[in-house]
C-alpha cells in the first residue's frame, strides 16, 4: 500500500500528505472549508450503512442472491435466456469497452463507434429498413418512442394508436406513459388465435388512426401470417405500421421491409444478455424518410484529416443536448454496451447460425407442444398457428397449482390464464426438456 492513508473511499488514492499539500495549494485548512452548504441543510453523514471489505461485500451479495431458487426457466414472453458464448463476456468485459462513455470525442473512441456502426448495420440487414439507432432502453420504451415519432410525423389529424389486446402489460403501460404528453390514445384491437384478427383490425382502422402496432412473433409465440395485409391497410389509412420483433426471430421470419413496416422495435438483447430480470436493449429501426425524427444516438461514417474512413456520432441536432425541449427524445445514457454484446453474439453465430437458431426454436417449440399435447388433459398449442420459441398450452386443471407443483420440481413456467400455461424452449437443452415433460406428466396426472 502506498503512503499513510486514512480510512475512507477505497478508490480515492490520496495519502494524508498529498491531501495536506492539495489543501495548501487551494488555500484552505480542511476539506470541510470547501463545502458551501448552509447550516440548516447540513447532514451529519450518518446513513447507518456499514463499510465492508471487498471480500465481505462479495459474500454479502452472494449470500443474498443465493436466496433465489435454482429453477429451469421455460420462460419467455419477451425476455429470453439463450446461451451466451464465452467470447461475448470476455470481449465485452475489456475495460476500454466497459469504462468509456458516450463518444463525444470520436478520435479516441473509434473502436466503440465502429462496433455500434456494425450493430446498426446488423439491424438494417435484419429489418430491411435504412436506419437503426444504436439503442433505446428496452422494447417497451422503444415502442413508446415509436408512438411519439408517429405523433410528430402524422399526416392526419387522427389520434388513435391501435395495439393488440394481448400486448404485455409492461409494454402497454409504458406506451401509455410515453404518449401522456400528446393527444394520442391507445386502443386495443382483437386478436384471433393469438395473432391479429385482420377483419377486426380493419373495422377499427380509419383516418383517425396514426399508428398500428403488431408483433411477430406475438407474445404467445404465434407467428403472424398476414403482416403484408396489415401493412397495406395501415398505409391506406396513412397510419404508421410499427412491428415488434427481435434479432433471432427476424433472422427467419418475414423481413419487415417486405411487409410494409415503417418502424421496427423490440428487444435486441435476446442476443447478448442472459436472463437479466428484464434488463434489455431497445431495438429501433425505421425508414430513411424519418431520419431526422429518429430518437437516440446514431453513428455514421465520415473521414478524418488523413482522409481515412472514421466513425462519429451524427445528426445530433435531433438530440436533447442540442435541441432541448424540441428534441426527438429525452434519452441520453442508453444501452450501448448491451448493443456491443448483442453484436458480438450475432457475429459468433454468423448468418447461418442465426437462421439455424431461429429454425430450431420453431422445431423445438413445436416438438414440445406435441409432447405435452399427448398428455391427458392438456392441449397444445392452444392457438392454431405456427410457433417459434414458445406456445400456450391449455390444461383441464387450474393452471396456478400446476405451475406451483412444477416449481417444486424445479421448473418455472408462465401462467397466462386460469387454465393456460405458456412454455418457452429458448436456452433450455433437449435433455432438460425431456425431464420437464416427465415432471409435467406427473403433475397433470
Amino acid at each position: 500500500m502506498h503512503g499513510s492513508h486514512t480510512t475512507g473511499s477505497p478508490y480515492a488514492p490520496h495519502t494524508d500528505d498529498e491531501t495536506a499539500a492539495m489543501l495548501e495549494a487551494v488555500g484552505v485548512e480542511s476539506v470541510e472549508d470547501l463545502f458551501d452548504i448552509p447550516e440548516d441543510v447540513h447532514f451529519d453523514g450518518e446513513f447507518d450503512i456499514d463499510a465492508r471489505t471487498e471480500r465481505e461485500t462479495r459474500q454479502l451479495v452472494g449470500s443474498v442472491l443465493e436466496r433465489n431458487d435454482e429453477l429451469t426457466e421455460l420462460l419467455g414472453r419477451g425476455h429470453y435466456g439463450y446461451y451466451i458464448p464465452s467470447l461475448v463476456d470476455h470481449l465485452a468485459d475489456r475495460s476500454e469497452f466497459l469504462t468509456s462513455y458516450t463518444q463525444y470525442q470520436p478520435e479516441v473512441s473509434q473502436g466503440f463507434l465502429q462496433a455500434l456502426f456494425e450493430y446498426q448495420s446488423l439491424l438494417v440487414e435484419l429489418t430491411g429498413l435504412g436506419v437503426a439507432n444504436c439503442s433505446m432502453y428496452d422494447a417497451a420504451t422503444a415502442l413508446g418512442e415509436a408512438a411519439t415519432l408517429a405523433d410528430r410525423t402524422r399526416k392526419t389529424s387522427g389520434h388513435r394508436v391501435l395495439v393488440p389486446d394481448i400486448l404485455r402489460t409492461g409494454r402497454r403501460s409504458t406506451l401509455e406513459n410515453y404518449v401522456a404528453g400528446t393527444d394520442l390514445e391507445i386502443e386495443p384491437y382483437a386478436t384471433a388465435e393469438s395473432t391479429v384478427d385482420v377483419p377486426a383490425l380493419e373495422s377499427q382502422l380509419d383516418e383517425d388512426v396514426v399508428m398500428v402496432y403488431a408483433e411477430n412473433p406475438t407474445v404467445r409465440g404465434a407467428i403472424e401470417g398476414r403482416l403484408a395485409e396489415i401493412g397495406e391497410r395501415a398505409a391506406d389509412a396513412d397510419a404508421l405500421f410499427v412491428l415488434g420483433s427481435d434479432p433471432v426471430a427476424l433472422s427467419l421470419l418475414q423481413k419487415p421491409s417486405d411487409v410494409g413496416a415503417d418502424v421496427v422495435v423490440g428487444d435486441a438483447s435476446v442476443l447478448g444478455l442472459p436472463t437479466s430480470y428484464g434488463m434489455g436493449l431497445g431495438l429501433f429501426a425505421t425508414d430513411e424518410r424519418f431520419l431526422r425524427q429518429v430518437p437516440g444516438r446514431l453513428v455514421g461514417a465520415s473521414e478524418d484529416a488523413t482522409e481515412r474512413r472514421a466513425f462519429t456520432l451524427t445528426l445530433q441536432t435531433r438530440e436533447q443536448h442540442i435541441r432541448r425541449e424540441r428534441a426527438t427524445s429525452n434519452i441520453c445514457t442508453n444501452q450501448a454496451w448491451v448493443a456491443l454484446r448483442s453484436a458480438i453474439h450475432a457475429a459468433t453465430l454468423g448468418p447461418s447460425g442465426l437462421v439455424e437458431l431461429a429454425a430450431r426454436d420453431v422445431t423445438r417449440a413445436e416438438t414440445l407442444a406435441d409432447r405435452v399435447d399427448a398428455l391427458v388433459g392438456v392441449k397444445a398449442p392452444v392457438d392454431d398457428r405456427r410457433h417459434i420459441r414458445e406456445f400456450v398450452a391449455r390444461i383441464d386443471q387450474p393452471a396456478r397449482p400446476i405451475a406451483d407443483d412444477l416449481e417444486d420440481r424445479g421448473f418455472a413456467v408462465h401462467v397466462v390464464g386460469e387454465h393456460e400455461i405458456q412454455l418457452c424452449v429458448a436456452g433450455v437443452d433437449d435433455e432438460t426438456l425431456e425431464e420437464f415433460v416427465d415432471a409435467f406428466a406427473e403433475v397433470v396426472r
Partner: protein
Amino acid sequence: MSDDRSESGNENENGNENGHDQARWTTNGQYEPLLSEKNQTRVEIGTDVDSPLPDDLTRDDLELPDLSEPELARHYTRLSQMIYGIDSGPYPLGSCTMKYNPKFTEDVAALPSAAVHPDRSPESVQGTLEVLARLQDYLGRIGGMDAVTLQPPAGAAGEFVGIRVAAAYHEHNGEGHRYEVIIPESAHGTNFATAALGGYDVVSLPSDDAGRVDLEALDAALSEDTAALMLTNPNTLGLFERDITEIAGMVHDVGGLLYYDGANLNALLGRARPGDMGFDVMHYNVHKTFATPHGGGGPGAGPVGVVEDLAPFLPAPRVRAVDGDGDATPAEYELFDPEHTIGRVHGYQGNWLVLVKAFAYIARLGDEGLTDASAKAVLNANYLASQVDYEVPYGPFHHEFVASAGEQDAADVAKRMLDYGVHPPTTKWPEIVSEALMTEPTEVESKSTLDTLAGAFNAVASEDDEILESAPERTAARRIDQTSAARNPRLSWHALSTTDGEGDGEREE
C-alpha cells in the same frame, strides 16, 4: 495483406513530450476493417439452411459476416484498443462523474444466481427482491427520501418518472391544469426534453450574476400554472444553491413540486440530502454517483426517490419487505402496485444488472467511504482548478468547475488535450460561461494525475490556434469531419459505397 500496428502519424509534429500515442490499427491504408469487409455471406433460407416454415412465413435470405471465433476475438480486441476509457487515464468529463468502476462489482453481477427471468414467481426470486429492497433502503437514506423506485433505466428516465408522478399528483388533487415546468437555463438538455415529453411547457429560468437561481426571476416565473421546478444542486457550475430552502418554500407556496436532478449528488454524499433541502422528488444517477460502468454510453440506472405524499404514485410494481419475526428469520419480500401508480416506464424492473453493482458499491463504501468520496471529489476539483491557467469565473464550486477557454475555441482545446494523453472536459456547456470547459475529476484521481491533467490544460492554453485546429494527432483517428457525416449520412455498411475506404491506400504519412 499485412496488418501493422502503425507508428506512422504518431510522429508528434507539434513537439509535445508528454501524453501518449493511442493504439491505431491500420490495414491497407484504412483503420480496422468492418466485419463486413472481412466477410459477407448470404444464406438462402430453405436452400442453404433448412426452414421448418412455409416460404410465405419466412424471409428469403440473410447476408451477414461469417467469421471464426479467433478472427472475432482479434477484431474486437483491436477495436477495444482504439477506445479511451477510465482505465486508460483521467476522464474529467463534467457532469458525467467518470469514476473508477470497481472490478469486483462485475463479478457479483455475473453470479449465476443473478441471472433470473422477470416473470419468475416472487417466492422463487427472494434474493433478487432482497437486493432491490435493500438498495431502495440505502438510496432512501442517502437522498433523505421516503420511498424509492428502481425501475427507471437512466437519469432521463428517472426525470420522466418524476414528471409523470408530479402530473399524477396534481391531477389527483384536482390541479391537473398546471402546465408549466420551470428549468434553469444552465440545466442539462434532458430536463427540457423530459418536461416536453411529459406534455409540459418549459419555462426557462435565467441565472443571477453569481451563477445561481435568480430569486426575482423565479418569483416571476412561479404561478398557479407551475407543476414543478427542476433543479440540480450543486448546479452545473458546481455552485451550491444556497437559497435552496427559500426556493423550496417559494415553489411549495404556489403548489408546485421541487424536482432534484441527481447528476451532481457525488458532491453532497454524506453532507447534505435533497430530502432535507425541501425536494419532493429526485433521481439518483447510479452510473455516476455509485460508480457503475458507463459502457460506452450505457446502461445506467436512474432510481427515483420521493417524499411520502408522492409514494402512492410511483411506478408499479414496487418491492417491499413483509417482515417475519424480527432478526430470527430473514424478511420475505413481495411486489405490490402503489395505490395511484403511474404504471410502468420500462417493460420490467429496469436495469437489474446495473442495480446489483450499485448495491455492491454502496455496501462496500458505507458511511465513511461515501462521505470520503464527496470530500475527495470536491478537493480534487478545487485543487485542479487552482493549478489550471484558464479562468474559472464562478465559485465556490464543489465537485466540478467550469473554466473558460477565453479566446480559444473550447472544442479545439478538447481535441488538443487528447494529444496529451488525457480525456478532455465537457465543452461549451453550460453556456453561461463562454467557451466552457466543464471539469469533474472525481475522487479517484491522485494528486500526481491531477498535476498531469493541469499540465495538459496549461500546455494547450499556451498553444496557438493553428496547433489546436490541427489536433489531435496522436489519437487512433485524426480530426473527424462532422459536417460530411451529417450532410451525407452513412449509417450502416449497406450505405457505404464499394469505393469507400479504398483509393487512399497510397496515402502514407
